[in-house]
């Protein structure tokens, strides 16, 4: 059986971030992690070609990159397509998911990839493709490759795929029926007794969570309130000193705007890779309205604008990260005696 393998510039041994712009290229045979796959596949299948593409190139030229890669894949008539593993690399994960889904949908070839559960590519593609759950770094390569190879062989042979726990893939959200050992009523009574006793139990159906936030009561006297600005629109001092990622942010920044009355093209910009940055870069007040709040402050219509603002990039950022950022920022705002926050997105 024939396999085509997709990896990024780093695992393709071309270079790091400085080579992330390289367009897709194809090599006959194995490259980088392909060696580990070769061992894991034990001669049952062979990687006939490896496609290497820079993460930035893929992110910035998605449609073009996809078409180029699909053309390369087609030429090798693979029985299966493997992408990654991408571990916790956000752009790489999204690229793996995007191209694997395209190969499956457009070429009808079975695909498998691997990512760490918090990689934004997981949430984007877990419903569409099999994503083997990996560790968060390349230290987990061996385990990831073993599971991905086993999955690849099963898919190529058209064998029945077991449960996520059995095969090691991320839940795809597909509900599958089976007959339990006890009837439903007995399971319900058992669960009730566990719940009463405060013991651990496993619900058979997770109600989807709609994360609705109940607003706080209105600020009593806005003319006395200290107001802060927080954004997921990526507004940072020019040069992006904290190197907040354009997508799949792993951090947020805290920036001093003492004495700043207007955000200009010379002083501020956006780090966000998910929208047209031109207008935000021209005048960042469009995303983070410092100018208007200074006006209100001078007119006495608000108490004051908080000295620091907080910014991250919402693009592809995992819910787990976003929750953590929110909790940390809220704590700091409370300590600084902030009474109200204006949240802006993009």
């Amino acid at each position, binding site marked *: 059986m024939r396999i085509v393998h997709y990896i990024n510039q780093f695992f393709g041994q071309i270079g790091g971030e400085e080579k992330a712009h390289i367009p897709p290229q194809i090599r006959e045979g194995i490259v980088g992690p392909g060696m580990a796959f070769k061992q894991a596949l034990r001669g049952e299948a062979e990687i006939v070609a490896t496609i290497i593409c820079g993460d930035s190139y893929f992110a910035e030229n998605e449609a073009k990159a996809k078409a180029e890669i699909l053309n390369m894949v087609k030429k090798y008539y693979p029985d299966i397509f493997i992408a990654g593993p991408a571990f916790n690399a956000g752009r790489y994960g999204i690229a793996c998911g995007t191209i694997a889904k395209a190969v499956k949908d457009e070429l009808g070839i079975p695909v498998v990839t691997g990512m760490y559960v918090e990689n934004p590519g997981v949430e984007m593609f877990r419903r569409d493709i099999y994503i083997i759950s990996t560790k968060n770094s390349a230290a987990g390569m061996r385990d990831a490759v073993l599971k991905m190879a086993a999955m690849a062989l099963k898919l190529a042979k058209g064998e029945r795929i077991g449960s996520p726990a059995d095969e090691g893939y991320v839940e795809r959200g597909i509900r599958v*029926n089976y007959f339990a050992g006890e*009837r*439903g009523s007995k399971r319900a*009574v058992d669960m009730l007794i566990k719940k009463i006793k405060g013991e651990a139990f496993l*619900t058979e*159906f997770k*109600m989807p969570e709609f994360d609705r936030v109940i607003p706080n009561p209105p600020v009593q006297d806005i003319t006395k309130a200290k107001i802060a600005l927080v954004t997921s629109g990526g507004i940072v001092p020019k040069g992006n000193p904290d190197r907040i990622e354009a997508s799949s942010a792993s951090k947020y920044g805290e920036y001093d705007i003492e004495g700043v009355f207007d955000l200009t093209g010379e002083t501020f910009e956006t780090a966000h890779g998910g929208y047209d940055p031109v207008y935000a870069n021209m005048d960042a007040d469009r995303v983070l309205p410092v100018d208007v709040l200074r006006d209100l402050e001078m007119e006495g219509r608000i108490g004051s604008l908080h000295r620091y603002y907080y910014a991250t990039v919402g693009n592809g950022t995992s819910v787990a990260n976003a929750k953590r950022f929110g909790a940390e920022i809220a704590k700091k705002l409370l300590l600084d005696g902030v009474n109200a926050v204006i949240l802006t997105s993009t």
Partner: protein
Amino acid sequence: MRLELGKIYIKDVQFASETRVENGTLFINREELLKEIGEDERLKHIDVEIAKPGEEVRIIPVKDVIEPRVKVEGNGGIFPGFISKVDTVGSGRTHVLKGTAVVTTGRIVGFQEGIIDMAGEGAKYTPFSKTNNIVIICEPVDDLPQHEHEEAVRIAGYKAAAYLGKAGKDISPDEVKVYETLPLLEQVKQYPELPRVIYVYMLQSQGLLHDTYVYGVDAKKIIPTFIYPTEVFDGAIVSGNCVSACDKNPTYVHMNNPIIEDLYERHGKDINFLGCVITNENVYLADKERSSNYTAKLVEFLGADAVIISEEGFGNPDADLVMNCNRIEEKGIKTVLLTDEYAGRDGASQSLADSTPRGDAVITAGNANQIVILPPMKKVIGHPNAADIIAGGFAGSLMADGSIEAEIQVITGATSEVGFGYLTTKTF
């Protein structure tokens, strides 16, 4: 209220000259049975057939399934408000012809009746492939309005079950189970140290072939109220419900409500089971609010620490389930919910029409949209062409060779939301 349930195990059913039970066989005088149920002028033709486990027989479209029972001692009779007067039932002694069931079929009333296969793939999904079924085939007079048609067939089924049940009156049961629930204050005192549990029993009441009756009263018109669990064993709650076959509670399932049975199993050991609160699933928001408020109030008033809530049907009643859950949990009373799912044929869609984060303990009876192929049977009792129009079927469900491709939604009792079956779902 104390009820002895005497179970007479029936291993075979045969037609004979006299209706009687002998050595585990139920003999039926066919003519006498037909005479007993044949007085309704709305039905122009009634017939009866027997379908046994393992036989290549399909029954379609199935309306209701009823268990033959008879009151031996104590107040009232089986099916109060229909077959018997409205005396309070649930105490004394009742005999059951265990292993038998009356199944009603005949021309379709609505779109939501079911299939019972006695063998093959479909047999795995219905509990009624394991019972010896006495199938009552009722054909209505021409132009009979649907509500009249439904009622006539429903009552014919009760009559047949009551008639057959009488054969067990003087038989010594193979097993006697005793169930007892005391008046509230005494019941609380009996096991003061155990957590107090109420069963919130939701009854389908969306109207137009989606109804349930309590002592003869249409459950649409009830305010949520208390019922002793043993009353249910005597047929105080019956089904007039043709909602999707997979998750309606046939009368048989009410009479054998497994949640009540399994709560009694732990009664006095892990829990103090106080009884049942019945409520409805009406379609208007005001009704849903009134009933869920009333249910929560009653559950709190009765002193429950925890409840099991079972839904009947899907879609619109998902809102009732969620409202009951929220209002009861808001009072600090723990809940476990029983439902089934409509996750699409691929299992990838949102399963319920409503959701609440408070519903953290849910038992699911399976995805009703799963496709199944039912092989052709040697014999079909009823009208096979109903397969194309019943809920869960589609145009082309019935194939030329007699096999049926449809969702398991078409199978009677496949995804029972009182947990009568074993089917469940996990996420892949």
